[in-house]
C-alpha cells in the first residue's frame, strides 16, 4: 500500500488552507464547494483538511485539534533548504513557536511550530543533503 493522504480534521477548512499558504508557502490543489474538504499540492502524498462535521459522517469519533490543548500525537514534517527562514515566516504568519531550528547531531536542522489548529509541524532540512 502507498501512503496516499494525510487528512487532518479541522474546525475551519478555508482558514486552514489560507494559513498553510501564508505560513508554509504551500499551494492549494482545490477546496471543495462544501468547504468541508481541501487538498494542498504536496506531490504524491496529499496533505488534506476535512471539516469536523465530516468525522461523524464518516462514522468516526475524534479528539478536536485545538491550539489551547495538548498537541495530538503526530507531526507534519515539511522539508526545506532553509529551515531558519521558513520557521521565521511561519511564526510571522501566526504559527506558535515551539522549538527554533537547531542543528541535530546528525547534521539536520530541525525546528517545530504548531499551526492554527494546534497541530505540530516540523520544519527541517533534507536528509539527502547530508550524504
Amino acid at each position, binding site marked *: 500500500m502507498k501512503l496516499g493522504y494525510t487528512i487532518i480534521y479541522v474546525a475551519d477548512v478555508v482558514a486552514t488552507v489560507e494559513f498553510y499558504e501564508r505560513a508554509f508557502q504551500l499551494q492549494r490543489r482545490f477546496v471543495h464547494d*462544501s468547504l468541508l474538504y481541501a487538498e494542498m499540492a504536496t506531490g504524491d502524498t496529499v496533505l488534506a483538511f476535512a471539516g469536523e462535521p465530516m468525522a461523524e459522517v464518516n*462514522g468516526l*469519533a475524534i479528539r478536536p485539534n485545538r491550539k*489551547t490543548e495538548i498537541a495530538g500525537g503526530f507531526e507534519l514534517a515539511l522539508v526545506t533548504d532553509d529551515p531558519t527562514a521558513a520557521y521565521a515566516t511561519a511564526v510571522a504568519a501566526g504559527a506558535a513557536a515551539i522549538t527554533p531550528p537547531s542543528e541535530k547531531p546528525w547534521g539536520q536542522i530541525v525546528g517545530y511550530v504548531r499551526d492554527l489548529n494546534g497541530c505540530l509541524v516540523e520544519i527541517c532540512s533534507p536528509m539527502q543533503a547530508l550524504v
Partner: protein
Amino acid sequence: MPIPNAYRETLYTKHDRFAGEAAWQSFAEHACAHRVLPDGRCDIILRFASDGTKPIGAITPLITGAATRFHIVPIAAGTGYVGARLRPGTAAAVLGIDLRAIANRILVGDAAIQALPALKSVCTAASSVDQLTDRLASFVERRCDPSLPDSLSAGLIDTMHLTGGRMPILDIASLHGLDVRSVRRRMMGATGLGPKQMAMVIQFQRALRLRFLAGLDAASTAFEAGYADQAHMSRVFRQMGGVSPARLPDLVLVGLPI
C-alpha cells in the same frame, strides 16, 4: 436494511435555507408498530389519514421532546406523517417551549396546540403531502431565530457529536472555557437534555451505525463506541433502543446532517 412501509427524508446542511435539520415524510400502507429511537432532537410532526399522496380529513399536530429512550408507535393502515426534525439547539426558539418540560414526552393534538398555538395554522387542509411538507418547512423557517443557539452552546453540541459522546463533560467544559455547571445549564436550555444524557444518546446512535450500517462486529463496536464491554453495550441497546446488538431489527436510522 428494510424500511417499514415508506419513509423519505431530506437532509439540510447548515448552509441551506431550511432552518431545520431534516424534512421527512412517511406513509403506512399497512398497520404496523414503529420503533422510534432517541436521537436528541425535537420534531414537529403532522399526522393524517392518507391515500399515499394527499391528506384526508383532519390533521393532528405532534411535538416530540428530546428523548433518551425508545418508544413504540402503533400506526393504523393508511396513516401519513410529515415531520420537521429540528437542529439541536434551535428548538427552543422554534417551539417557544421550555424543552426540559417535554423531554421524553410527546404533545399530541390539543396539547400541542396549547403549547404552540401558531401550529394551528399549519393544520388546515392541504391538497398534497408535498404541500403540507412545504407549509411545515415555512413555519419552521419563520419561527427560527438565527442567533439561537448562541455560538458557545452550538459549539458544545458540535463537540459532543465530534467526540462521539465519549469525551468526559469536564473535558468538554475545559475545551470551551466553561465550568461543568455552565455546560449543564446551556445544554438543558438548548436541548432539554443534560450533557451526560445527550452524550449517551450520541454514543448510542454512533454504536447503532457502526453495528448495523457499517456491519462492525459487536465486540469491536463496543470498544470503538467507548462502552466498558459488550455487556455494557447490550444493556444500553436494550434500555435506549429496546433492541439487541446481536440481531438487526426493523429500524429507521435518521440521516446525519452535515
